[in-house]
């Protein structure tokens, strides 16, 4: 076994439930490499919702609360709120995060609460058998858009930026080195970080949307379509060609929510001790 796996996986939970060729195992490896480099495994608290990517954290030997479909982010907020020293990371998918859990994403980003959302985007509802997702391209034929998808795609990174996330990156499973670096940056970022990972799903996306169920084909598809471009003014052109901009898009410092809570609590307690107005 890979030494990282030896060190950090729950061996009694194996084998993975991921299909052959799935990108989720690569994300497990990149994340564990980042955690190992930082030596922060004891500080980790993970949450997840429902979907293939929600199982990523379950195989890691760390504290994890896997909740309902779409609800990983509020669960993470509750965990973070009770002990801000935790490094809270949510593993979620495009359906989990952008459809059923979309509202939670907006408000967690707006609060700039110190947590990391890792959204694995395979452009489809894979676990339920290949239905259209908010991330599915227009025209795609899926199990629930047999005559072609009429709805435009929702761009998770743009949503996160607009909602106030203070760190936003997008990479793919074909960018393991960049992914490890970005994970480390996010784990140390004091604020809300959003990482989108374009990932291959040969079984659903490959077969129904891209025309091949071969893992190699699907991995190559990511390599061919993910273009590094960190300047948002150039995204439209890349996207118009059917390609996907990747890179570290944003990192800014803003007041972090839990730190502000601590300051507020201190302030009101001092005011109360003096008997003054809060």
């Amino acid at each position, binding site marked *: 076994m890979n030494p990282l796996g030896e060190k950090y996986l729950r061996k009694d939970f194996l084998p993975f439930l991921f299909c052959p060729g799935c990108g989720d195992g690569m994300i497990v490896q990149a994340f564990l490499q980042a955690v190992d480099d930082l030596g922060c495994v004891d500080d980790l608290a993970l949450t997840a919702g429902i979907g293939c990517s929600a199982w990523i954290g379950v195989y890691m030997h760390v504290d*994890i609360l896997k909740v309902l479909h779409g609800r990983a982010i509020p669960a*993470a907020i*509750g965990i973070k709120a*009770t002990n801000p020293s935790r490094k809270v990371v949510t593993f979620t998918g495009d359906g989990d995060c952008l459809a059923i859990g979309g509202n939670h994403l907006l408000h967690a980003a707006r609060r700039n609460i110190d947590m990391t959302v890792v959204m694995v985007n395979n452009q489809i509802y894979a676990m339920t058998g290949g239905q259209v997702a908010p991330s599915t391209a227009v025209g795609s034929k899926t199990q629930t858009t047999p005559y072609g998808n009429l709805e435009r795609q929702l761009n998770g990174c743009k949503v996160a930026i607009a909602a106030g996330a203070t760190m936003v990156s997008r990479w793919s499973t074909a960018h393991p080195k960049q992914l490890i670096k970005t994970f480390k940056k996010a784990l140390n970022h004091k604020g809300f970080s959003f990482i989108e990972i374009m990932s291959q799903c040969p079984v659903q996306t490959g077969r129904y949307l891209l025309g091949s169920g071969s893992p190699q084909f699907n991995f190559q598809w990511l390599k061919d379509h993910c273009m590094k471009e960190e300047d948002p003014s150039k995204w439209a052109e890349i996207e118009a060609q059917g390609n996907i901009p990747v890179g570290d898009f944003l990192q800014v410092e803003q007041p972090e929510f839990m730190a502000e809570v601590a300051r507020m609590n201190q302030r009101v307690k001092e005011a109360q001790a003096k008997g003054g107005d809060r």
Partner: protein
Amino acid sequence: MKKGRIKVMLGNEACVEAALLAGCRFYGGYPITPATEILEIMSRRLPLVDGLCLQMEDEIAALVAVVGASWGGTKAMTATSGPGFCLMQEAIGLAVAVEAPCVIVNVQRGGPASGQSTSTAQGDFYQARYGSNGDYSLIVLCPSTAQEMFDHTIKAFNLSERFRIPVIILSDEVVGHIREKVFIPDADQLTFVERKVPTVPMEEFVIFKPEENGVPLMPTFNTGYKSPVISQAKSLNGNRGNAKEAVENIRRIVSKIEDHMDEFAEVQVYGDEKAETAFVTFGSVCRAARSAVDMGKEKGLAIRSVEVKTVWPFPDHLVRRALAGAKRIVVAEMNLGMLQREIERVIRQPEIKIELFSKIGGIYPQPQEFLRFLEEKR
């Protein structure tokens, strides 16, 4: 006589007072009439005790955050009313499945849907018990006074920690908004229950293996136990379970409560315990029924009023005992007959018809109406 102080309080305010005394340090909420005061007062009070009150984006997020805070190691609660309670149903099931102690207050208002936001009702009687999916059990307490809002909140936290379950306080607009005397005992006069945490080394700990009382020990996150907590049917070690393991898990999370009902089930009788005429009530309706019993007594009518304080799991045995010898049973409630169904199930005597005195539309029953009902329907 316990030491403490007396204060005139809103029912909702008494709930907050008790929650803070019980050690609640996280509140996730969303504004909704007639429960909003609980959120408002929490947002003032929690910062003063290093707690956190978060107004979430909806009631779904509110209760899910409470479940997260619970596994984070904190006593946590939320409060809502009908429409918000609907949104919370999925997370009630979640709290049951991941065995997260927490308290949920439902200050009932008129339904269905948006219904009557400022009016009282008791239409969530069955929703409080059966609203989430699958087989499960939980405890539902029904206060009828501001004092009981206080007492039941303390009890709710204690039971939630004891059984590792969500405990629901099924209040209503009248109880939430009544302003009356509340006796607040000093903290050292009260008993507080805390969840049992594991002390064995991580390697020896099996996360969902129950103790003798059916409840597993609960490690706090980031204390070295590296807990896998999933909402799926699970095996004892926390992994996805097979059918046999799922069966065992479901049976355990039900029996851990229902095998120990004598620890918490409560039915009170007001008035003449041997009276042939009996009212059966819960929540705020107990108040009017008591007045009716007193007024009846002045007129020479012997009446008992049976008050079901813990409506779920339904205390069949205690209700049967409280109604023993009654020849005429009138269930009084602010819905179209929900408690009535339970009484019909429990009292199976063909000669006794379980009558219903029902008030809906946000109109609280007057004591005189109880007596008029007894006369007119005879």
